[in-house]
């Protein structure tokens, strides 16, 4: 099943997206954020909270900001103080939090730089060991055929999540995503420890990551499969979550270059800086990112806004490339959200999904189920999900977030997940090679629709390039939501880099071909 697409249009759209991303990236690299510096300290090994449960990375970074040193980055003052006081990472963090030590710019900058590099190398070694563990486990595990079955747990209690995740894995899930507590994206710190109280999800904490990872490894070993773990690398703590995920061997992260700006009203400048660092860490850790274009289709109309998905995917692809990410880790998102009442809607879903498949042949596409038009009619909902699965099977989607027939009612019951898996397995197996057997009528409805969406996406990207991405977002070009450069949450955490700013991670984590990578 192949659409005839004008390759020159794809190339032109991609080139425009590359120029759009580079312009934003160049601007972003003149600044840093509190979250990037906290992530740096977390990668150094700083963890824990003070008596008021404020995480030590926050305490140290706030201290640096108060001392007017944040523009230099956390790495040099922190590593320099470790040398000067002969303290390890945690002891120094505690001393700073208790007000016993005031951080300064190190007198011996080359020594501090070397110390920071050594700390970063230790972190990189741990992350590389995680990558090796994952590769070993995947090698000895049964092959996971695509589309992978991706399921969500969302009880609010990490221990209950583990019960649900184990059951889902036993029923056939390939990927488990632990939904975060609603509102976590707007916290400017990462909660600490194992948590049992969340709303609509469970707090992303390093300890929760560790607990779920261990549980999935255990059940995976029992089943002879590797169960991938997903969390949410988004919001105000995007870089820190990336660091935590890399340290605890998560396999996927929801991570979008623009989602926070548009849907969470997080400051645009902050997001572009944070997404670069977080994607660099994700790429280094072999973590597949999942982008959030599906959200455009729940806010705007899925038929009319189809081209905004493709345009955004191309932008996300280019931002990811600037962070050193290979296409094989770019889980670009899209969704099955056309109004079921629309005549021939299934054809348009096929056209959209196949278009994305062909524009990004190497990307592990993430396909999202119907949500907007799901109702309390669970019987119809099950049919909607089956049609969604049919498109996923026919167009070779890679990561299929399974639809729940109770989507509109509650966070999934155990049986909802079971029925969702049963539905998907039936459709995937019975239609396994259908896509290879069918051809799309040349010049027919499906092909014309795909060509139309491609042309619209190209035009949109060229328009965005002309005015710049911030201005385009300011005009509400994505999801009909407008955001301004100096608006939104978290702008106060953006700092201009001082002369001599230093962060040891880009030169260790970025590939040589990229600016900021190894010299």
């Amino acid at each position: 099943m192949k659409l005839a697409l004008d390759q020159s249009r794809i190339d032109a759209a991609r080139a425009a997206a590359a120029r759009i991303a580079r312009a934003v990236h160049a601007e972003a690299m003149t600044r840093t954020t509190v979250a990037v510096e906290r992530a740096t300290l977390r990668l150094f090994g700083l963890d824990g909270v003070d008596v008021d449960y404020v995480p030590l990375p926050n305490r140290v970074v706030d201290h640096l900001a108060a001392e007017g040193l944040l523009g230099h980055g956390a790495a040099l003052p922190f590593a320099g103080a470790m040398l000067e006081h002969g303290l390890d990472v945690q002891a120094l963090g505690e001393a700073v939090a208790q007000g016993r030590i005031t951080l300064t710019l190190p007198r011996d900058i080359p020594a501090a730089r070397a110390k920071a590099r050594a700390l970063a190398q230790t972190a990189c070694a741990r992350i590389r060991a995680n990558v090796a563990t994952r590769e070993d486990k995947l090698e000895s595990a049964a092959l996971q055929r695509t589309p992978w079955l991706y399921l969500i747990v969302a009880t609010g209690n990490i221990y209950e999540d583990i019960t649900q995740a184990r059951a889902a894995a036993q029923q056939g899930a390939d990927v488990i995503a632990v939904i975060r507590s609603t509102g976590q994206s707007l916290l400017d710190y990462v909660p600490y420890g194992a948590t049992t109280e969340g709303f609509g999800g469970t707090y992303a904490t390093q300890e929760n990551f560790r607990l779920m990872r261990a549980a999935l490894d255990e059940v995976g070993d029992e089943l002879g499969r590797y169960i991938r773990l997903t969390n949410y690398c988004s919001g105000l703590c995007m870089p820190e979550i990336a660091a935590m995920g890399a340290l605890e061997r998560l396999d996927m992260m929801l991570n979008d270059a623009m989602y926070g700006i548009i849907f969470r009203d997080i400051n645009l400048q902050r997001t572009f800086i944070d997404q670069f660092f977080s994607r660099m860490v994700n790429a280094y850790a072999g973590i597949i990112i999942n982008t959030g274009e599906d959200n455009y289709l729940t806010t705007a109309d899925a038929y009319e806004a189809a081209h905004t998905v493709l345009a955004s995917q191309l932008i996300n692809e280019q931002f990811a490339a600037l962070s050193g990410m290979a296409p094989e880790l770019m889980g670009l998102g899209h969704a099955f959200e056309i109004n079921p009442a629309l005549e021939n809607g299934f054809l348009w879903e096929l056209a959209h999904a196949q278009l994305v498949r062909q524009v990004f042949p190497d990307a592990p596409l993430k396909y999202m189920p119907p949500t907007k038009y799901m109702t309390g009619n669970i019987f119809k909902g099950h049919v909607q999900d089956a049609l969604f699965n049919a498109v996923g099977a026919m167009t070779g989607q890679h990561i299929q977030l399974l639809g729940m027939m109770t989507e509109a009612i509650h966070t999934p019951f155990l049986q909802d997940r079971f029925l969702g898996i049963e539905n998907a397995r039936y459709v995937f197996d019975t239609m396994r090679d259908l896509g290879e057997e069918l051809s799309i009528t040349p010049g027919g409805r499906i092909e014309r629709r795909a060509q139309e969406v491609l042309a619209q996406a190209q035009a949109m990207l060229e328009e965005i390039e002309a005015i710049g991405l911030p201005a385009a977002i300011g005009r509400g070009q994505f999801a009909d939501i407008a955001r301004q450069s100096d608006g939104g949450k978290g702008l106060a955490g953006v700092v201009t880099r001082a002369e001599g700013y230093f962060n040891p991670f880009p030169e260790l984590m970025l590939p040589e071909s990229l600016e900021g990578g190894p010299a």
Partner: protein
Amino acid sequence: MSNSAKTNIVRPYGDTLDDGRVQMSFTLPVPHSEEAKEAARQLALKMGLDDPAVVHAAPMGPDFTLFVVYGQCRHSIDMDTITVDQPEFEVLDKAAIDALIADSLGRKLVVVGACIETDAHTVGIDAIMNAKGFNGHKGLESYHEVRAVNLGAQVDSADLVRRVIAERADVLLVSQVVTQKDIHVVNLRRLRQELDRAGLGQDLIVVAGGPRITHELARELGYDAGFGPGSYAEDVASFAMQEWLRRHGHQRGRQRGERP
């Protein structure tokens, strides 16, 4: 057996009047076995089903079993005893609502909408507010006589109240989608307190909406109306305008710009 035609007593209908046939599905945290099926059957009996039949039992991993059960419900309901608390209004179409506002207010009706507190879901408030609306029903932004201010999701109650005052809103629409551990009730109570503290008890028409919101619940929490699934902009706007008229004694032809 049946005199339902006279007394208006009803039972579930399978394929014959008063056969009482119902279906349900549930999970028991036990391994799939004959004992598990018998347990499901006995549970159905306890629920008031005669002749329950476990028509499907599937193992969901080693620890859980899914059941589909049919049975005959023993219970019946007298329709004449049923009353439902629901907002009283006549559903008008967009043009009629616009005309009513123009005629009654002589200015635009100001509607502020938000999904409050920790809830990050804009889908409900967008369906009512955004110009495109939902399912072919245009949203309030597309109404000529409505000034619709959609604040999106995760709006703090105190911030919302300040905005309501700044916008001089006539109507406040509050959406709540997440209901785990009754967080929606907690959030709606908090907002009501903030509104009362700001003295917005009388003039402002406050409407709650969401998949688990009923009119009864909304009234209980001190809201003027509650709208559940399947409600569209015209439902909410019709209610709001008719409620406005009730409060303002059907005054018509007010001077432009004059506040009620």
